[in-house]
């Protein structure tokens, strides 16, 4: 696996624009063969670590939900924790599994607007949809 795979096999137009290099050191392929194995092992470890973190976070949100049932913490606290945990989990998946760690510099200009747009849309709906009924 010494050559880089940046052909456009997925797109149905194989227009190669020269160097679509993935050769960042943080990305799993590319680079010279030497140090490649270390790199690959590091990636494997990071994937497993994220997987374990995701499982733990899922357990945390489940436990917090049960704690409310037991009357130990208030529903508001638990809801906050659970939503923060969800955001962290989504961030983990996006950052490591979706390779945003390596690709953020290339896609931030579409991701930042869409995140702003999502949050804004929900917030603007609130006065009519929620506060109007109070």
């Amino acid at each position: 696996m010494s050559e880089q795979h940046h052909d456009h096999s997925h797109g149905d137009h194989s227009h190669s624009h020269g160097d679509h290099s993935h050769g960042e050191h943080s990305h799993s392929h590319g680079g010279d063969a030497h140090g490649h194995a270390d790199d690959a092992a590091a990636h494997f470890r990071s994937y497993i670590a994220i997987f374990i973190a995701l499982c733990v976070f899922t357990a945390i949100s489940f436990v917090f939900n049960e704690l409310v049932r037991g009357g130990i913490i208030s529903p508001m606290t638990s809801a906050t924790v659970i939503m923060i945990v969800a955001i962290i989990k989504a961030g983990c998946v996006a950052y490591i599994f979706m390779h945003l760690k390596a690709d953020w510099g290339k896609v931030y200009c579409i991701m930042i607007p869409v995140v702003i747009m999502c949050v804004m849309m929900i917030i603007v709906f609130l006065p009519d949809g929620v506060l109007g009924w109070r």
Partner: protein
Amino acid sequence: MSVGHPPTTAAPAHHEPSFLGKYIFSTDHKIIGMQFLFTSIIFLGLGGILALLVRIQLAWPHAEIPILREWFVDNGGRMTESFYNMLFSMHATVMIFFVIIPFLTGAFGNFTIPLMIGAPDMAFPKLNMMSYWFMWPAFVLILASFYAEGGAPAAGWTSYPTLSSITMPAGEGLHSPAAPNSGHGQIFWLLSLTCVGISSMMGSVNYITTIINMRAPGMTLYRMPMTIWAMFITAILQAFALPVLTVALIYQSLDKSIGTTFFLPDGLTFGNWSAGPGGGQTLLWQHLFWFYSHPAVYIMILPAMGMVSDIISTFARRPLFGYRAMIYSIAGIAGLGFIVWGHHMFQSGMDPRLGTGFMIATIMIALPSAVKVFNWLGTVYRGDIQFTTAMLFALSFVALFIIGGLSGIFMAATPVDIYIHDTYFIVGHIHYVLFTSSLMGIFGAIYYWFPKMFGRFMNEFWGKVHFALTFVFANGVFFPMHILGTAGMRRRIPDLTATAFESPLLTLNQVMTISAILLGLTQLIFLANFLLSLFLGKQTTERNPWHSNTLEWSAPTPPPHGNFDVPPVVYRGPYEYGAVPNRTEDYLPQTLKFDGPVPAASGH
């Protein structure tokens, strides 16, 4: 020219595909663009006929309808009110979703993007083909809705619940107790628009990818023509806004089919029949709908602005004034366009705290729009103007967009909007923006790119006749709408003689209707010119008949599959027109390597 294609023949670069493969199931962006072009022209005819019927009813509310009178035997040969409702609802739907948007992003987006950035085709040609063929279910459904039980939808193109979405309880059929037209026809409408949405989504992803990744060497972002910038930003608008409309459409069709109550509030009753459990929010539909449909207004104007910028610069033989300002103003309009949707809802009972914010954001849109207008004027000023038909349409775009834009500012201010909301003032506004601006821009673009598309010119004389008559009659139809609106004439009212305050407005309506009929007949001149020129028009003898700078003119005419015989390399921006030392021509094509001084926009 080493590849050896004669510059003016249509020899495809590869094997000769069958007729079906070449013109019907084509993956070539130019053919797909033309498919969009032809279907849009057909739907323009349909939408126009619907508009004329609306106008006839408004002008002579008690007259028998000349041709359709057998349809209304029960009503004494006169149009029924629900038929009138259906007419204006379908007129707007057809014109917006099947004419203007496919014209701009479908036809010209497809045709211009790869050619103007120097790419052999779109990034995903098959996806591109799918985006056209996904329009066909939409075409079929929207036409089928006319024949549906109860007729085509009649709740306006905005389809506000509860009028549009009131349903029978789960499992009791799809008929609507509210209005007969809100039954099957409305469901067809919803499904049809969902298909349009999917098609546009595919198109927008494809356009953005193509523009970002497929540009010719040297074609930096700030060397792209305004058409491409406009298409790019339009595609972004579509990608962001359309999914929200899709959700709203799906929710409403679920409300109508399986008994959900997303948009049906508590305690809704019709006669002695109760509309299910309720719990939904009618206002949410308006929010979701306008979250898409306000950006859609910009989807319907920005590409026209881009194309007009190119046409004006080409025929004024002057660099586009303030190229970067034009880009930033388009981006500004698009960005602000996402936070102004509430100005459609000032009268809906929306939270007033939101209203103020929306009002301020809306008024701010006037700034980038004004920048654009002044830049067009700055481009034309002291230009060596060639009054071709395309240029005439482009100039009238600028002139009439000013009217449409200014009347928009009226509506942006909540206090004024409360008075003129749902009057003919707003009808006048949208027609100034969509007909006399967008459609004028589209006509200009057709006259401008026709030689490149088909290798023949359209007839200039009849083109100018078409322009002059369209200009006069369009203003004849749409300008009085402002007067009527301020006089209090309500939108969507079939019979003006029903109220004392609207009855005196009948005469002016008759003038408008006569204007509208003549406007419709004028378009037959265009149609004849278009169709005859396809086969009989003067053949183009050179690749670049308008002496334009942009890349598409360096391709063979019509461009073969794969577009360019010599892969283009870009050395300069797209608007370097004007006399230069050491050069006889007054233009510097983007592919030209030239070391001398270049013309610059004054004050730049």
